[in-house]
């Protein structure tokens, strides 16, 4: 059902506030715009409380909005029905399901609701739970439960999949194979809207990264170009009599040469480093946290520790 609408998700001026006249209002989403093209993987990044989950839950039809236009697969989630729900898949945060059903029974029961479901056993194998297919949900580890959530989210063969912090609690190997799964789903034509705290996850998976802060989008681009060229300017750092100095420059080699020239007789520059801001650095500067490689940054101990 690839309609004439080229966008799987189109959001304009989305607003949502919580609170009451008595306790005061808080704008969770404050005029947010978002586009997701068919077949695209978009990662939404942002600090806790930035409005990510609120936005996603409005798109999923769980929450009402105060203002703005929202079209998900061409329909307004507020009024969308079962047909629409059959075309989306949702993997939510916070899974505390203590069911006595087995993994296979759960996935089978979920599959029954969809007109064109995937084979439950194959979906379970695809998320790496084949050995646990006959195990009760109650006994699963946190990571296994998360993978079951993913299985339940994709068993209906969704056109658009929402993944809300899907790899929280995964060990590195499980995360890696989850990434393979997401990539395979994309190759299958699934559009994916992902929220995550993990910058490496966004860099690995996303065609496009959207940074949300205080309920608005502050940046949107490919992971490689996020923040623009300016943000990726290398930083030269050195110690100057116990004080950390940094300099942002497009010509780091020249800067280093100058430092060497002005160094003491042994030509040694104490604590010399040349770093290119990572996606994480760019992200942190976008959301207003002090990045460790900021020009005026003084302390890079956290960076060394990381």
């Amino acid at each position: 059902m690839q309609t004439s609408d080229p966008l799987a998700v189109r959001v304009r001026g989305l607003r949502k506030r919580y609170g009451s006249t008595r306790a005061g209002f808080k704008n969770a989403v404050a005029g947010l715009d978002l586009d997701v093209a068919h077949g695209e993987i978009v990662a939404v990044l942002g600090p806790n409380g930035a409005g990510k989950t609120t936005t996603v839950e409005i798109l999923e039809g769980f929450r009402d909005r105060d203002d703005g236009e929202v079209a998900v697969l061409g329909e307004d989630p507020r009024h969308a029905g079962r047909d629409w729900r059959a075309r989306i898949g949702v993997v939510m945060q916070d899974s505390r399901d203590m069911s006595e059903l087995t993994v296979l029974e759960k996935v089978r029961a979920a599959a029954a609701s969809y007109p064109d479901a995937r084979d439950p056993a194959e979906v379970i194998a695809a998320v790496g739970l084949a050995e646990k297919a006959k195990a009760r949900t109650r006994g699963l580890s946190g990571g296994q439960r998360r993978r079951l959530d993913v299985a339940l989210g994709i068993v209906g063969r969704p056109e658009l999949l929402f993944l809300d912090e899907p790899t929280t609690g995964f060990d590195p190997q499980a995360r890696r194979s989850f990434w393979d799964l997401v990539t395979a789903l994309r190759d299958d034509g699934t559009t994916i809207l992902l929220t995550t705290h993990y910058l490496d996850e966004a860099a690995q998976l996303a065609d496009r990264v959207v940074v949300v802060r205080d309920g608005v989008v502050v940046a949107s681009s490919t992971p490689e170009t996020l923040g623009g060229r300016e943000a990726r300017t290398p930083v030269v750092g050195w110690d100057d009599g116990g004080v950390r100095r940094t300099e942002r420059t497009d010509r780091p080699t020249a800067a280093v040469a100058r430092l060497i020239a002005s160094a003491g007789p042994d030509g040694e520059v104490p604590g010399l480093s040349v770093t290119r801001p990572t996606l994480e650095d760019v992200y942190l500067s976008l959301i207003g946290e002090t990045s460790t490689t900021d020009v005026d940054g003084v302390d890079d101990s956290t960076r060394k520790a990381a």
Partner: protein
Amino acid sequence: MSTTKETALDKLDRRAGLDGRSTGAQRLPGTLRLGLVRGGVELLQFVRERDSVVFGFAYPILMLAIFSSVFGDDDPIVANGVPVSFAQYFLPGMVATGIMLSTYQTLALSIAVERDDGTLKRLRATPLPATSYFLGKVFLSLVTVLAQTALLLAVAALVFDVPLPDDVGHWVTFAWVFVLGTAAGAVCGVAYSSVPRSGRSASAVVVTPVLVLQFTSGVFFPVTELPGWMLDLSSLFPLKWIAQGMRSVFLPDAFAAAEPAGSWQHGATAAVLAAWLVVALVVGARTFRWRRHDDG
């Protein structure tokens, strides 16, 4: 692990067919069919939860067995010169209690817990109709209450020699009290499931009212022994009327005189149960939430 996964996904892709994604080509499964699927899920879940089987399902049968064994040798209970054994006197109250436990208590508890642990919200994200979810719940209630009542009557008749009615009239009364009581209990359970603020508080919040009502509704001892105000209060709730209706089925007609009104009050019973059914249905439909209290 990665090789298993890739072959599995290859299979997924192949299943998608030549034209790739066949979305929309097939129709959504019917509400009734999905209700049955949910019913199967509920039943499977129920029998695997041992504590619910023991405390909800077996409770009235255990109580009947214990009380009848303890008091069985005492003097028979007499009304208008007609004696009945303790087991016979106790049976209607246990049938009524069983109905409340299998409908109201099971539903209110399970829905409250499923709301708290996110199961409800998760289901909301799928094309499962709300009606199918409730059909599944009602299916479970119906199956358990039928099995429970049948077992209760069998134990009473075979172990404690309680004479069961042998005329159609009494069984007709049994049928309508049973159906109306079950229906009212089920919708009350759905409506009441929104009251507990969390899954952890649910069992206390849900179980306490039935427990208290058991003592004030003539289940354990005759309502005539209660203070007037307590009887009036209990008369507002369904359990008193279900128990009274069941007494009219399983006790000799002479016992009608021992009721507070001096009669079985079938009309009032039907009216009160029907009123609960309608009110709880309206309240339940208006207050039902897919999400927790603290979740927006």
